[in-house]
């Protein structure tokens, strides 16, 4: 009886008037083009406004090359670390019971709920010249703020949730039965993790790493606070784009920005491919 009612209601939703369906799809597409495709087109148009050689020159310029190199370095440091931390955190949270678990889940989301500028300021307050550890660091000639380590730390903090969140959702849904089966079959803890837990989570891990990488390369706010904007030394791609834009070097700014746009496109395509593969 209730089954029948359910079927009927489901049928009703699916049988929405064709006109309404078309209107909904058109609205969604219009929104997507206006807010996602149009900016992409603008970036490409502006970057190539002065021709290909100008585009290439803008990218080959020493400060731009330094910014690209720094961005790649930061990503190369941050992404593996956060993949490791995220995996460890997700494993602990999804597969074990412990006191303070809800607090841990909330803390993992903290970087998403705090403004990146605040995240950057925290590191200035800790490691800056006037910060808690400022005196100690100065005495030992260690530079963190306005230097590469500070940028890495700020990026590490801001991008921490990506891998952990992807994995926690999946691992919780998968439960612990397969791990328990492995244990009863004689596998040790590490063997179980490597042969059961990790392979089951590999696609989610890859998705998390992709998103983490995209954000690590694109992060502006937190990095802006700790970087010091030293040209050719502590400017990442997003910071360099801002400087060029403020100097009215519009074409150069967009040339550099097109790299980030390209990164976003590649990330999305690979993510789609990964998800299609994982769904099989």
């Amino acid at each position: 009886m209730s089954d029948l009612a359910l079927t009927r209601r489901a049928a009703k939703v699916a049988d929405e008037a064709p006109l309404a369906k078309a209107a909904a799809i058109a609205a969604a597409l219009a929104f997507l083009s206006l807010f996602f495709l149009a900016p992409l087109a603008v970036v490409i148009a502006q970057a190539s406004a002065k021709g290909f050689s100008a585009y290439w020159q803008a990218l080959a310029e020493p400060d731009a090359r330094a910014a690209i190199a720094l961005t790649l370095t930061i990503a190369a440091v941050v992404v593996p670390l956060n993949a490791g931390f995220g995996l460890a955190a997700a494993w602990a949270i999804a597969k074990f019971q412990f006191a303070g678990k809800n607090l841990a889940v909330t803390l993992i989301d903290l970087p998403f709920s705090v403004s990146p500028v605040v995240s950057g300021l925290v590191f200035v307050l800790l490691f800056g010249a006037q910060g808690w550890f400022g005196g100690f660091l100065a005495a030992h000639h260690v530079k963190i703020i306005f230097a590469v380590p500070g940028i890495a730390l700020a990026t590490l903090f801001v991008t921490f949730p990506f891998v952990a969140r992807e994995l926690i959702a999946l691992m919780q849904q998968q439960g612990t039965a397969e791990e328990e089966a492995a244990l009863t079959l004689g596998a040790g803890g590490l063997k179980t993790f490597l042969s059961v837990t990790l392979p089951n989570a590999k696609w989610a891990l890859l998705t998390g790493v992709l998103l983490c990488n995209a954000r690590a390369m694109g992060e502006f706010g937190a990095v802006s606070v700790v970087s010091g904007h030293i040209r050719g030394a502590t400017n990442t791609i997003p910071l360099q784009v801002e400087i060029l834009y403020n100097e009215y070097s519009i074409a150069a700014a967009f040339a550099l920005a097109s790299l980030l746009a390209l990164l976003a496109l590649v990330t999305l395509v690979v993510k789609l491919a990964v998800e299609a593969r994982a769904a099989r």
Partner: protein
Amino acid sequence: MSGGFGLPRAISVDNVSKGFGDGAVLDRIDLEIEPGELLALLGPSGSGKTTLLRLLAGLETPDAGVVRFDGEDAAQYTVQQRRVGFVFQSYALFRHMSVFDNIAYGLTVRPRRERPSRELIADRVAELLAMMQLGGFERRHPHELSGGQRQRVALARALAIEPRVLLLDEPFGALDAKVRKDLRKWLRDIHDRTGLTTVFVTHDQDEAMDIADRVAILNHGRIEQIGRPEDVRAAPATAFVREFLE
């Protein structure tokens, strides 16, 4: 398939209690399981039967009391060392592995010294596939199998390690009624062929009464009655048992 399993083991549960958070799940359980016996733990959901099974496997530790295998305190052995064949309610097959790799898992994870050769493992898996009527399925993945086939892979995987006892949690729980009936006889048959001491959990009294040598009926973490199916049916010990069997 004869041999390999050794002499069947006796399991004894002595005054075992277990609680999670607020309530007691198992309350001073005493249970003697004979070597080679097929015992059913029967009870409504929440009666503690699955927890008792997991305690035998070493997947849970008792708050009080002792579990013994052949008179030896099981607490000194980890879940890996206990060598129990455990069949999980939803089978818990390794979803990213083929049927072959699932069944071979318990052999391939052994330390190098104790690990059988590749050929021996392949022979063993082939033997189990034949026993489970799963020939030709070794390259399939779990999601490509029917419920009944998954169930048989899970059992083959558990038997591959030459377990000392066989424990099954709601072995037919996820199957439709027709398949359940067919598989009953088949479980009894596997038990008779391996001679293993076998304990299975069920909430279905027909299933328990049909194939078990003895039935233990649980309610609220206590064993209400234990005995041969015909005896329990003829003389229910408590009002709960009488009502549950109706």
